[in-house]
């Protein structure tokens, strides 16, 4: 169990790619699963999606949004992550559906990369939408070449269509008959895409980025209401049919520690100064 950073690369401002050495996780991980990192003693446990595996390594792509992710992005090659647990969560339901639309928004693009590969491998025809704020934030574009069609959507129109991903999704659904959709990205994006899917009576998998502590079903902090039942995102998910998710309570729970998160980041920046490494 080494957990050393074999390779690190900056993909966009505050978005960093890490290849971590860990033979167990790299061997066992399936698309849709995640790991939990604790960077150092005293650190918090944060969930990160496994974005790919290769040999003894697995890949995560991290967006710096708060103290722990700022710290993680500050690590260099050959540094170690103190604790890495995984693979966790139920893998994506990969099977032959026929025609699939896969949408990745922002760093969610990292999460859809292994899913798109797996879907194509079992014989699906996959159309992919890569969506982000702007051209610079579209990551891993090269990895989606095997898609039937590759579409781009940016908020400012600097690449592809000047549309929100749910808008582009709606447009494509009218042109092409899809059997299932995947949408992974910010919660609001997944919610919007789920609304479109609901209107068109289309199954849509979303990957919920709930707040977690242990990630093994022990605390229920990541609970989410799916139809009428409480589910634990870490063991029952993280993927659910977006049409069944109670989005309002999910979004509320995501903002639970806003004040604490802000305070932790401010304290950290007071110590380290300008985050020039982002």
């Amino acid at each position, binding site marked *: 169990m080494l957990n050393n950073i074999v390779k690190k690369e900056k993909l966009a401002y505050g978005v960093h790619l890490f290849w971590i050495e860990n033979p167990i996780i790299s061997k066992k991980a399936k698309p849709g699963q995640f790991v939990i990192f604790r960077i150092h003693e005293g650190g918090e446990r944060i969930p990160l999606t496994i974005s790919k595996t290769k040999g003894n390594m697995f890949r995560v792509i991290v967006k710096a949004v708060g103290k722990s992710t700022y710290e993680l992005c500050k690590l260099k090659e050959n540094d170690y992550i103190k604790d890495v647990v995984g693979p966790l969560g139920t893998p994506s339901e990969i099977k032959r559906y026929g025609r699939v639309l896969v949408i990745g928004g922002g760093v969610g693009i990292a999460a859809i990369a292994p899913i798109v590969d797996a879907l194509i491998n079992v014989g699906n025809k996959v159309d992919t939408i890569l969506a982000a704020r702007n051209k610079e934030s579209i990551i891993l574009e090269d990895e989606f070449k095997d898609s039937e069609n590759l579409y781009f959507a940016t908020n400012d129109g600097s690449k592809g269509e000047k549309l929100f991903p749910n808008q582009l999704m709606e447009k494509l659904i009218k042109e092409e008959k899809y059997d299932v959709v995947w949408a992974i990205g910010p919660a609001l994006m997944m919610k919007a895409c789920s609304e479109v899917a609901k209107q068109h009576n289309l199954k849509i998998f979303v990957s919920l980025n709930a707040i977690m502590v242990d990630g093994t079903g022990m605390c229920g902090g990541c609970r989410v209401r799916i139809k009428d039942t409480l589910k634990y995102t870490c063991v029952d998910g993280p993927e659910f049919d977006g049409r069944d998710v109670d989005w309002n309570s999910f979004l*509320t729970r995501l903002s639970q520690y806003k004040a604490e998160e802000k305070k932790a980041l401010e304290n950290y920046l007071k110590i380290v100064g300008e985050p020039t490494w982002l």
Partner: protein
Amino acid sequence: MALKDRVNPIERNPKERAKDFSEVSLGYTENLAIIEAKRCLQCKIPTCVKGCPVGIDIPGFIKQIANEKFQESYKILKKYNALPAICGRVCPQEVQCEGACVLNKMGKPIAIGSLERFVADWASKNNIKDEIKIEKKLTKKIAIIGAGPSGLTAASELAKSGFLVDVYETFSEPGGVLIYGIPEFRLPKSIVKKEVDFLKELGVNILLNIPVGNAIEPQELLEKYDAIFIGVGAGTPKFMNIEGTELNGVYSANEFLTRINLMKAYKFPEYDTPVKIGKNVVVIGGGNTAMDAARSALRLGANVTIIYRRSEGEMPARKAEIHHAKEEGVKFQLLTQPISYIGDKEGNLIGIKCVKMKLGQPDKSGRRKPIPIENSEFIIPTEIAIEAIGTNPNKLLLSKFEGLKLNKWGYIQTNEYGQTSIPKVFAGGDIVTGSATVILAMGAGKKAAKKIKEFLND
């Protein structure tokens, strides 16, 4: 000194201790321990031993304390119990050894738990190294899943017999509930660490951060090991699932305690994990977990109320913990049942709607059943609610164990020796019994270890 008087261990002042997470009980001094030990009648047929799930030679170790031979006493204890500093602190002695002490008939029973703790702490303070006697090195390998009380006890027993033992643990620290559940003020984590280090000296190999089921499949373990012991606990919390369970400010006790104990959220922002705390905190439940959550919340500065649907007599928590909680200022709202959570526009909890209860006829558990009183609804304003109403078996692992028989509640079915429907797989602790006690889990670990030895020597 009259026989019925018991020497109480020294405790910190409630007002002072309610402000920090340091240990409440300071234990015995040497003199106090000797006086208490001398009260023991040294029964020929000691009933106390029968009350101990691991069958410690209680009169034996107490006699050595009375004779001021603490090291001898420690040796006796250690022969039966791998983790005496822990058991002396967290066992519900009143229903075990102390409950069975003959002195109950005339007054207070011997403070067996406090004496056990005294000896273990004395040995630790005086750097007494445990004698490591490994019977003979064997080549057979055993996998233990879960580094909680049952797994650690089984590991220690099997390692002493010479087996190669690998313990797989999902968390970054071994100890299970001793680490994430029971707070520092009842069980200092340094003690858990010390007792676990002893297992490492026995040659037990503890592999951390490995979720068996995902990182390693049961099938692989079955191929690689000669026997397996499952001691994964009953870790999945139940929720009442009333309206508003998703509101911010509603916690399971497991989450609240994990944040505080394992992640040290009470030291935020020195430690990175936050925990929400309001002016008011309500804890729902009447067990030890509820007491731990309430007393932890109190230490974070909140005004804490425990809501319980029955009356105090039916509370499953240890009497001592209820007493400690009261001393520290926890309020009790008995015969009360929550019916829904009330939130504000931002999704934050602001209150709990409750109904008053009365007690009816005894139910199957022998406790009088609580019945709602009509038109008695009222609202308790609070920003935080912690549900401590019990747990379910964690299915992360069990769903992947092919052919493993579960009972109707989803716990593992075993015979009386801890053997499951798969002959080389044994199980014990909460994953078999449902939420129980640390010492019962240890007893199950010990019993299963004995059976595993027989099984492998056949």
